[in-house]
């Protein structure tokens, strides 16, 4: 090869390399932040990485980068990234509470939905509207929903010799005498007391019951704050229509119910027992020492690994004053308003919510929001551990959607972060102080919340 051809050959190779490198550089980087909700467990991380790789291999315009942050740190890290002008492009899965903690930072998708003629017919219109926030716009699209239900430990019912809760919404509870009772909070209370047992095997309905040595509890509203707990008594909010602090009447009745449940009837774990080792350090139902809990769908794939060999089943959420409210969690993916690449981010978003919706929803344990994917969902989730081999009453989960809470128990409040701190601290007193003056306490809560709400203005 002559010197000239050799030089030419090298120049061509160099140009090819440069063009390849330029093409690689031209890819738009889209950062996907995971941590505000599900997606941080080891198996989920692996699966998400595979999805990212598949997306990156499927096209050459966008480089999707996954950023996974531990849930405990996610709020702080995302806040810091926003403050530093280094926010990610897409955040999710994220629930109502996660989004509410960052008001005003999400992109309104309305224009993108219109310009791309995005097909929304596969979603329940009410659910699409759920993500249309006043003053912020369409900040997300439905991805996965997590209805709530009552879970009960069949073995503890068998041990107590009492029949299981009903199998369908609207069915009565048939008690040990064969009598029908309305499946409501009062019936739940009676069952829960029978199922609460001390070290001597005495239950909470008996005079000789020793509340200092409880070894098994009857009922708990697990993994939620006081707003979630009170939603069993009906949907509500700590802010009225004018933005003033309130504790709705039915929530005040709910607070009275919880206080008695913890300190008089003893069937609900108070602060003394709530974090105890024998109560699973907070995962009450998984401990095997809790007869009934109300919980969301995400709990089943995430937190029931310790229940191998224990028979449990799903049942309707009991009603209060004739109204049933099964609180709902809904996850989505949102684009941050600060993104420099909204079109590319939207393309990724539609990939995650479209092609990968079923895979991701199954991975996170949520029911796909897409109507076309819902029929097969329970077959899929039921085949995977820790649910494989169980014949769970999935109809309850689907039926629970009709009783979703509106307003949401995770909905926005003025100055939400500080308001949360106020009512969580207040709940700590309710849960820990047997002599807590509830009436005075409710007024103190309203006053403290009002102060925080006023600060927002």
């Amino acid at each position, binding site marked *: 090869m002559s010197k000239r051809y050799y030089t030419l050959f090298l120049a061509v190779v160099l140009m090819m390399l440069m063009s390849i490198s330029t093409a690689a550089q031209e890819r738009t980087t889209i950062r996907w932040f995971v941590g505000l909700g599900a997606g941080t467990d080891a198996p989920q991380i692996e699966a998400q990485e595979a999805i990212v790789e598949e997306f990156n291999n499927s096209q050459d315009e966008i480089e999707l980068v996954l950023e996974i942050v531990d849930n405990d740190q996610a709020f702080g890290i995302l806040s810091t990234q926003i403050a530093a002008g280094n926010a990610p492009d897409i955040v999710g899965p994220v629930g109502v509470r996660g989004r509410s903690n960052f008001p005003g930072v999400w992109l309104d998708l309305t224009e993108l939905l219109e310009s791309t003629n995005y097909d929304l017919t596969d979603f329940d219109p009410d659910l699409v509207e759920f993500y249309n926030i006043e003053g912020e716009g369409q900040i997300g699209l439905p991805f996965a929903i997590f209805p709530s239900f009552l879970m009960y430990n069949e073995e503890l019912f068998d041990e107590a010799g009492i029949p299981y809760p009903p199998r369908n919404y609207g069915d009565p509870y048939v008690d040990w005498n064969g009598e029908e009772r309305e499946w409501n909070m009062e019936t739940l209370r009676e069952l829960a007391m029978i199922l609460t047992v001390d070290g001597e095997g005495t239950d909470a309905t008996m005079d000789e019951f020793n509340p200092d040595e*409880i070894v098994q509890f009857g009922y708990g509203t697990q993994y939620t704050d006081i707003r979630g707990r009170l939603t069993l008594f009906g949907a509500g909010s700590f802010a009225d229509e004018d933005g003033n602090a309130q504790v709705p009447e039915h929530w005040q009745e709910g607070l009275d119910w919880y206080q008695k449940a913890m300190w008089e009837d003893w069937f609900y774990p108070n602060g003394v027992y709530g974090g105890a080792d024998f109560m699973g350090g907070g995962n009450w139902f998984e401990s095997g020492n809790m007869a009934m809990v109300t919980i969301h769908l995400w709990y089943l794939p995430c937190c029931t690994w310790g229940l191998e060999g224990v028979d449990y089943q799903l049942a309707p959420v009991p009603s209060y004053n004739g109204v049933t409210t099964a609180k709902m969690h809904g996850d989505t993916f949102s684009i941050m308003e600060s993104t420099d690449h909204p079109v590319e981010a939207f393309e990724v978003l539609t990939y995650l919510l479209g092609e990968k919706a079923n895979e991701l929803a199954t991975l996170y344990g949520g029911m796909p929001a897409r109507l076309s994917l819902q029929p097969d969902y329970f077959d899929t989730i039921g085949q995977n551990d820790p649910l494989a081999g169980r014949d769970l009453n999935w109809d309850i989960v689907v039926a629970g959607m009709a009783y979703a809470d509106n307003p949401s128990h995770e909905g926005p409040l003025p100055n939400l972060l500080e308001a949360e701190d106020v009512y969580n601290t207040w709940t700590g007193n309710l849960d820990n102080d047997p002599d807590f003056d509830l009436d005075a306490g409710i007024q103190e809560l309203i006053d403290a919340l009002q102060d925080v709400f006023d600060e927002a203005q």
Partner: protein
Amino acid sequence: MDMVSAFSEVRKERFSWRNWSPARRREALWGLGFISPWLIGFLIFYLAPMIASLVFSTMNFELTKPDGATFIGLQNWQRLLNDDTMWLAMSVTFVFAIISLPIGMISAFLLAVLLNSANLMGRSLFRTLYYAPTMVPLIASTLIWAQVLNPSDGWINRFIEIFGFDVRGVDGLRWLNDPAHPNLVFIAYSFIGLWTIGNAMLINLSALQGVPSELYDAARVDGASWLNRLWSITIPMVSPVIFYNLVLSVIGLLQYFIVPWVLTGGSGDPEGRTMFYMIHFFKQGFIFNKLGYGATLAWLMFAVALVITVMLFGSARYWVHYAGDSRS
């Protein structure tokens, strides 16, 4: 020429770059080169953030709304004075320091004396065992303590019950959250603090090993008791190390955060007794995202820590004995 002018001339002569020989200049450049990593690190990671935080303290800077930050002058400082939670947090921090400091300091010292004793068999083993808890991450050990102190099934209450006391359950010893006896939590936290005295113990131990044995021999000849020797020889001889531990402990207590945060999540339960200053600061700055006010809180604590440290150094001349120093 008066004394001040003379000193000024000497200083000029000594530090003026122009008066230096080439060799000295080269040496100085090499010196600067060697310490530059530390200097650059200090400037970027300490000085710059400190200046930034001082600027933030004059702004209504919210972490999630950086574009909305505006200059508000001294309003954050004004708010500080009217912040009831800040005063509560400051008082809680000081009360806990007063309770916990002597417990931690005395325990670490006495443990070191014990582990330095010639009469103790298996000294190396005991030294390792007593230091070992320090190697466990504090968050992990705090979570373990939460269970150990659990009122219904914790080991401590179960142990006390062996002696016939009914201390479990709702009316029992609720170490970490008893609204009826909220101050009990200070004892519990001090107890947890003992888990981490390994470092202080080790430093005390090294100081004890440096005390000349001749002093003890002489004291024994004079008929001094163990207590006399401890009071008149050991403590004065290791007082610089006690002082060092004291300063570190005070600063550590003013920054007390991990244990209450892990155990309460910053709720302040029971009855606000665990609303330590750093908890309040962290919540304002990084939970409520009010970084401007958080920076103000941080600067106040810096000022308080500085004053206390200066006071401690001022007191040192009366009780800390430095060998070969005129103060001894």
